[in-house]
């Protein structure tokens, strides 16, 4: 996009802005922003797989659930949060490798469906393994013994940090040799094979990375909420929301998930209070509208407009 140094400067400004923002906002909006950051992280994971590599893991929310539950169970055994989170992440990575290696051999359609199946199966297992997980009733986590404002800020900063880390990591990953491998898979998998790219390795590793970040978001969420239930953290709506976020922001662009998360969450806040009884239909209509009007996402729409302006300016000059 712009000059590299300018980019880094802008990045610092943006991060600083967000770090100090909570001072000027009510607790409600701090929580809204925290949710936005969280969805941005999950969408980045989705974007890596789908936007860049062309494999849609419709059931990716299962890593969110895994992260949440491993954290909950770990902390209920007395382990501190900082120890449990890496554990949760590693569990998620393990799942992605074990399940991914056989399934990622299949075509895109089948992979998407298989992940839905896995997510559903995992949900059922968690619901039924009552001794370990608390079953359908859910499970609690230790509450932080501090004032609510402090707690909100703590999680706000944690999610912000996670979002920045995830975005930067994926940004550099995509520009690396590995990133070219991933993009080649989307561009033409058969050609990628014959060019020396180990496609199975790339696919499984990409999914493991996606699982890593998504599960940490889940773990943070669990600690933040102090109470989670299986329906909530394995909810297919999480996946649907992240797909919509990815689409509206722009699949295959690094800022897309962040912008998409802002747009969707803010819209949801507004729509919820206005359309409570119709919120499903409104979401449905909004999805259709996005597909019709900004199928490539908001970022692409804006750059297209800018390109057209550039061209028309040039025309004027040459005349």
């Amino acid at each position, binding site marked *: 996009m712009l000059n590299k140094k300018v980019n880094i400067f802008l990045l610092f400004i943006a991060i600083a802005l967000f770090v100090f923002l909570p001072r000027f906002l009510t607790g409600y909006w701090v929580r809204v922003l925290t949710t936005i950051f969280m969805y941005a992280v999950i969408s980045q994971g989705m974007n890596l797989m789908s936007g860049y590599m062309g494999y849609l893991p419709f059931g990716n929310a299962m890593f969110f659930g895994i992260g949440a539950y491993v954290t909950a169970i770990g902390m209920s055994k007395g382990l501190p949060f900082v120890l449990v989170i890496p554990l949760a992440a590693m569990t998620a990575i393990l799942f992605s490798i074990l399940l991914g290696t056989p399934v990622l051999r299949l075509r895109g359609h089948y992979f998407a*469906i*298989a992940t839905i*199946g*896995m997510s559903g*199966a995992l949900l*059922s*297992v968690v619901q039924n393994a009552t001794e370990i997980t608390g079953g359908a009733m859910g499970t609690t986590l230790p509450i932080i013994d501090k004032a609510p404002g402090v707690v909100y800020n703590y999680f706000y900063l944690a999610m912000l940090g996670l979002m920045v880390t995830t975005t930067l990591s994926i940004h550099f990953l995509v520009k690396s040799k590995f990133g070219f491998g991933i993009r080649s898979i989307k561009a033409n998998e058969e050609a990628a094979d014959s060019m020396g790219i180990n496609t199975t390795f790339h696919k499984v590793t990409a999914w493991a990375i996606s699982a890593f970040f998504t599960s940490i978001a889940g773990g943070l969420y669990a600690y933040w909420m102090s109470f989670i239930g299986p329906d909530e953290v394995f909810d297919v709506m999480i996946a649907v929301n992240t797909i919509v976020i990815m689409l509206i922001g722009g699949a295959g662009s690094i800022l897309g998930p962040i912008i998409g998360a802002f747009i969707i969450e803010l819209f949801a806040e507004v729509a919820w209070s206005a359309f409570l009884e119709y919120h499903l*239909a409104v979401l*449905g209509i909004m999805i259709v509208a996005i597909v019709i009007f900004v*199928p490539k996402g908001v970022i692409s729409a804006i750059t297209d407009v800018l390109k057209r302006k550039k061209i028309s300016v040039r025309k004027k000059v040459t005349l």
Partner: protein
Amino acid sequence: MGLQMLVNAILLGGLYALMGIGFSLQWGISGIINLSYGAMVMLGSYISLEIFNFFQIDPFISMIMSGAILFVIGAIIYRGLLQPFLKGGIVFTLILTYATRLIIENIILKVWSADYRTIRLSYVGSNFQFGNAYVPLIKFLAFLLAGVLVYLTYLFMMKTKTGKGIQAVALDKEGAQAVGIDVEKMYMINFAVGTALAGITGSLWATIYSFSPHLIGVIVGKVFIIAILGGLGNIWGAAAGGLLLGFAEVAGASFIGSEWQEAIGMVIMVSVLLWRPYGLMGKKFFA
């Protein structure tokens, strides 16, 4: 106990068979993974509910109405919403059919609420003996009709001009185009047949079980499994898949406990995907 379980499994499986065929056809031939399928099944149930309440007409008869209405709805949705965006790939079709589900689900919630509804037929409760097993009359009728409809769908695909056109398109799109078949129309009719079957299944379902929007997600989960077991687009495959799922659920409920039913179904599906991605019957259409 064995015979009763067998009877239960077959009766349930027959209904599942009909339910799965529509979804399998849509996925296998029209190339659409229809996440709103569950909502369409339920719509069929509610249509029969209203007709029953207003006109006291049996769902076994009003299912024709359900089928017709859902056929039209399916055609409109395909032509208006899905076909223009097919080039967007799987992400678009999944998200668009999901949006359709949300809209239909919201309508159902608004009009009929989330409460479970039933249709009380006068002859509910009567059953007959088969060996030492009880066969509920209503389930048996539903099973018979499901079977007839599966066969009619097969005949439609094999013997009618339109059906053969759909087959042709499924086997070789360019070839079909070259001989003058309107490919898009075939895809649309195929999709609409799928939604019609969903609606009819809903009516049959309503004769036996209670229904509510809560079932929407559950149904989608089941038809996924059936379609994959049977191989996409394969009518007899889906029928077999439906029966298989019926067996798995009935047996699973007896031996493992009904809470694990869904998990069993999902595990079966993922296993099949890993081992035989083209379904138990392999890569064939219709037969």
